[in-house]
């Protein structure tokens, strides 16, 4: 009873008059809220239906902006947001992956439109703009994320425009990197972040494409700097958005994914050290998840949205974006070490995401999208469906299908 009352108390502190008005006017939004209040899961359909629906939501988020970029989110309060350069950058990769997964050239065209839009709005310095909409300030992380999209587009289309844009962006990243490897300027909240490991990953990709030693050295320095932040229990400092709040699973997963992908470009002891850190941390989170249940045979509860430095659950909401990203990490670690317990946990956590993905809602802003948090008024992106939650969910489903195929064919 206590968690239920706690949920209500938080709901009443979070709900704003504008949201109440929208809930009254839009039964589809009210339905979502009611389901989250009472914890009623939606019926799970086949993976194909969930994936298709997620991709349709992402396509709509692109169409709605009329720019080529994807709207940052669909919110209860203000509907579709402005296009978001950062996340559009990595949604390019999702469109490309899905296009080849279902053999649909339409998604390749979408990826191209998105990549072209990113080139159109690239800052003269080569950096990518911060925030959603068209802002004049550059941000390191956003730049790295768009490089990943451009690099994938270049690999698919062989169109040099994408490589040139990515080179310009990479040069900018190298020019502002600190001697110790961190990025401290042009960062979100003005502080260095451990999740810049994803930026290092982008530079490794670029080093591979261009044989640039500068990109490789800059990326290596950043990875070494991140390793210097790790404690004996695997916890990595500065994984959060700011220093005065505990990191979300979203940014923890960002950090781990960046390290894991970077490890493919490393060798020897450093590779082992980075992989070891990612694998041990993903196992820690996996055990936290699997042990969070009310009955030995029941499904696990939602993963907490935040962790503290002792790896203790530190939030009463779940960050669904982070859950999809964690699923990807578990799947990728399974591919490395064949520990099927991680595959198993990924299947379960993705089922929980399917339980909140309404694939038959009459509201196109909701249909196929993944909310930022569970419950929807949770700390992370309250009352909204961020495009990156749906993006990571779609990525996870594609990866899941790829990994299940050999097991099911055997």
């Amino acid at each position, binding site marked *: *009873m206590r*968690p*239920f009352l706690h949920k209500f108390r938080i709901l009443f502190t979070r709900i704003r008059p504008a949201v109440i008005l929208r809930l009254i006017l839009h039964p589809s939004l009210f339905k979502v809220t009611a389901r989250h209040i*009472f*914890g*009623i*899961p939606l019926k799970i359909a086949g993976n194909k239906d969930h994936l298709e629906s997620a991709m349709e939501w992402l396509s709509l988020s692109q169409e709605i902006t009329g720019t080529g970029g994807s709207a940052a989110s669909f919110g209860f309060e203000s509907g579709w947001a402005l296009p978001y350069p950062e996340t559009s950058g990595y949604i390019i990769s999702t469109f490309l992956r899905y296009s080849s997964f279902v053999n649909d050239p339409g998604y390749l065209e979408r990826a191209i439109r998105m990549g072209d839009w990113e080139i159109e709005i690239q800052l003269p310095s080569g950096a990518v703009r911060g925030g959603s909409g068209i802002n004049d300030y550059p941000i390191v992380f956003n730049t790295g994320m768009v490089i990943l999209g451009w690099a994938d587009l270049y690999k698919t289309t062989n169109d040099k425009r994408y490589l040139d844009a990515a080179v310009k962006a990479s040069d900018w990243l190298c020019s502002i990197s600190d001697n110790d490897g961190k990025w401290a300027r042009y960062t979100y909240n003005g502080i260095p972040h451990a999740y810049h490991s994803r930026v290092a990953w982008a530079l490794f990709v670029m080093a591979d494409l261009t044989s640039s030693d500068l990109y490789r050295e800059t990326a290596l320095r950043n990875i070494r700097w991140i390793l210097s932040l790790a404690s004996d229990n695997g916890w990595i400092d500065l994984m959060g958005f700011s220093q005065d709040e505990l990191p979300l699973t979203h940014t923890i997963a960002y950090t781990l994914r960046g390290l894991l992908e970077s490890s493919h470009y490393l060798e020897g002891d450093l590779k082992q050290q980075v992989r070891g850190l990612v694998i041990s941390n993903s196992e820690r989170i996996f*055990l936290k998840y*699997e042990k969070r*249940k*009310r*009955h*030995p*045979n*029941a*499904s*696990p*509860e939602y993963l907490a949205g935040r962790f503290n430095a002792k790896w203790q659950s530190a939030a009463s909401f779940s960050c669904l974006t982070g859950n999809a990203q964690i699923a990807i990490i578990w799947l990728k670690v399974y591919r490395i070490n064949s*520990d*099927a*317990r991680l*595959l*198993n*946990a990924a*299947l*379960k956590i993705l*089922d929980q995401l399917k339980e909140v993905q309404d694939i038959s809602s009459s509201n196109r802003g909701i249909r196929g999208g993944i909310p930022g948090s569970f419950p929807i008024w949770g700390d992370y992106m309250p009352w909204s469906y961020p495009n990156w939650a749906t993006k990571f969910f779609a990525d996870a489903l594609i990866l899941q299908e790829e990994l*299940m195929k050999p*097991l*099911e064919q*055997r």
Partner: protein
Amino acid sequence: MKYGIITADQELYTKRLIYFLKFNFHKPDCVIQVTNSFFHRIKRNLNLRAVVSILKAQTSERVSSSAKPSTDHLARYLESLGITIPDISLVQACKNEGIPLFTTNDLHSGKTCELLRRSELDLLINAGGGIFKSCIIDTVRIGILNAHMGLLPDMRGMNVLEWSIFYERKLGVTVHIIDRGIDTGDILSFKPISIEKGDSISDLRDKTGIANFELFSEVLIDFKTDSLTRRKQSPEMGLQYFVMHPRLRSCVERKLRDMSADKSSIPIN
């Protein structure tokens, strides 16, 4: 030596175990039944998502128990020994056999601990009693015996029969002493089970029941004759497994079908 059996929602299994052990001259000194009623569980977890999850778990339990094995191997085994299980309730069976039966609706209540303390048991056999906290573990002099459906220390936790097939590991039952961890207590004995042509997971589960009974009986003899060896295990010696997702379970079912269709290709054992 004084020993008891503790159970929850496993009437038939417990009844069979009592008659089997009695047949082997180990009549239990008492039976403790935990009546974790459905209403009790719902009341404790008043949260709709949890309720749905419990309902799902109940349904899957029912489905897995309704997915009857092609043969009731345990019943046939008992029959072959000449043991007849009367069609009566556990309460009645205990009454008929003169075994004191205690019921409780909360395994970890002070009342249950007190009851166990007063019973002064040397051993307690777990026949699906649940997960034990230290307040219960500490009340039994030697310890609580558990039959685990896999090879310890490698395969700990849930659905280890399925996980063993998935990883093509040895199938069988390990009897161990329950400690504060999950399947981390001292190992007493292991009995392998074999896959036969046409076996399904339900068949194998049923066969583990036979191995459980035989192991319990053997271990009780060893305790009585003071000839038991306890093998310590440390937490890092094995991995803990969790409930298998239905999609992986289907892979395991398929794998087992292929393996048991052609017994000669079985890589296990």
